């Protein structure tokens, strides 16, 4: 009892003796709170509210002439718009950073351009990003993945595979599960495009495992679609099962576009290819 009283007294004295933190100005605090809240919502997948919070943060940072904060939140906003599938809106958000484009700005621009099937523009943005990404470059793995995507979209499967494998190598020691899954998915796609369906299946499975662990429905559904495509190429009897799983996941998550694609693939699958996995 006595010891407890002594400890409590020491703690109180220490608290009274510590230097109080200087408080942020109210508008800066409001901007930081909006940004922080937006980031939390982005992590939770609440992209619509995250977009609003980042827009608010951009506005407040701009009002206090904080260029760094404004630029950073524009990147957040673009990333959120891309996650929502709003590539045009992402480009609009990034237009504010066009005056002094950083590697992140260029990479997000390329990402939006790829989503809009503007392959040439994406290649140019990626080349510019690569020019700024000197060693050591923390974004190199993501840059390689984007180059792999661009190469795959351009029908250059070997080049896409090389970029994806290089990215996977860079990600091996890191803690970026998202990008690792993306790398596996790209490897699977590139192998499938290069008619190496047997090699593609385990890569797609690896991507699916990670995406399941991260609990990302859209990616899981697309992984199942990819697996279905690979199985169909291989002649596996469980092709329809893969498409069925994709359809179920898409329906449960309310992903109409993927559900439609899965239903079409399922409809086109031969009746003999329905054995369970």
């Amino acid at each position, binding site marked *: 009892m006595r010891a407890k009283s002594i400890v409590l007294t020491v703690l109180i004295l220490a608290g009274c003796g510590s230097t109080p933190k200087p408080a942020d100005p109210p508008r800066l*605090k409001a901007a930081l709170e909006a940004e922080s809240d937006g980031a939390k919502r982005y992590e939770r997948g609440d992209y619509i509210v995250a977009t609003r919070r980042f827009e608010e943060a951009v506005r407040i940072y701009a009002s206090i002439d904080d260029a760094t904060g404004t630029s950073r939140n524009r990147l957040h906003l673009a990333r959120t718009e891309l996650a929502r599938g709003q590539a045009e809106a992402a480009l609009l958000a990034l237009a504010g950073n066009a005056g002094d484009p950083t590697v992140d700005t260029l990479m997000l621009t390329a990402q939006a351009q790829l989503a809009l099937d503007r392959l040439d523009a994406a290649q140019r943005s990626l080349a510019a990003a690569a020019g700024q990404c000197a060693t050591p470059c923390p974004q190199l793995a993501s840059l390689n993945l984007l180059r792999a995507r661009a190469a795959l979209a351009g029908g250059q499967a070997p080049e896409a595979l090389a970029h994806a494998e290089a990215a996977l190598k860079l990600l091996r020691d890191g803690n970026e599960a998202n990008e690792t899954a993306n790398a596996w998915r790209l490897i699977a796609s590139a192998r499938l495009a290069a008619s190496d369906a047997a090699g593609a299946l385990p890569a797609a499975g690896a991507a699916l495992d990670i995406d399941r662990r991260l609990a990302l429905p859209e990616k899981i559904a697309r992984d199942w679609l990819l697996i279905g495509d690979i199985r169909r190429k291989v002649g596996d009897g469980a092709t329809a099962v893969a498409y069925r799983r994709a359809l179920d996941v898409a329906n449960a998550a309310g992903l109409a576009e993927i559900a439609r694609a899965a239903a079409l693939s399922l409809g086109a699958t031969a009746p003999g290819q329905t054995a369970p996995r």
Partner: protein
Amino acid sequence: MSLLTQHDSDAAALRRGTRRFLFFALLVTVALVAAIVVRQGLFRQTTSYSFVANSAQDIAKGQAVRIAGFRVGAVSEVSLKDDGQVAVTMEIDADHMRFITHDARVELRKEGLVGSATLEIVPGPDKTRLAAAQARLTFSRADGLAALANQVRDEFIPILKDIKLITGALADPDKGLPGTLARIRESSAALNILLANGNRQVEGIGGKAIRVLGKAEDDLGHLGQTLEAANKRLPGMLDRTQQMLDHVEKITAEAEISVPPVLRDGSAVAADVREIVSGAKQTWPIRNMVDAPAPATLKADSDPRGEAGRAR
């Protein structure tokens, strides 16, 4: 002596009577002459106008000249000119000069088709300028019976010709009335056949229509039953709805009173809580446990929707 005196007085009386008679006769004569002179217009102020006509037919000296049916003067002279035309001069009372405009014309009219002719001065449309004294007016002659007869003849002759042509065409055995009647007969025969066919078809349609009407009657019967059922249930439903609305109204009225203060209280409470939490966050030792908002870093994801996996 007395006889002579008596004779003298009688003669004087006779002379006085004779003088009185002669005086009165002279007065009456002068009055008659004056009346004649006045009647002839010798003391009236007149103005003369003239016109030229092709013929002096129905125009004579002393002939009355009228304006709007009122006599205003007379023809004073009718003479034949060197060129064969007739010059006519009229004397018009100065009082009526104001009716004779510069564009007035003189018309020779007849009272009815066969009555006596009169000269009528017809004022022109321009009333602003009057005709000057001695002015020459234009003349026209109204159509008489002969002119009318000629006009009627001119009108009738083409009509008669047309009648002749029409009757000729009607009498044509091919294109005229006989041919048309023959074609009408043929058409009526064809029409009879058509009507007979139509009647047969209408009878068929009528049968179908009767069936359709029968079905419609059945349907209407069902509808009537349905409406009857609805009619029976509707009052009850309306009553229940009315009760519900009464409840809702009551609740709304109560809420109107109670909710705004609650909301205000809630808002105030939320503000207080926010203030307390904010204050608590800044106090030791909680401030060391709560992360202050800081610039965020989002995890990189080059393919947030997994689109690279499969062609979209």
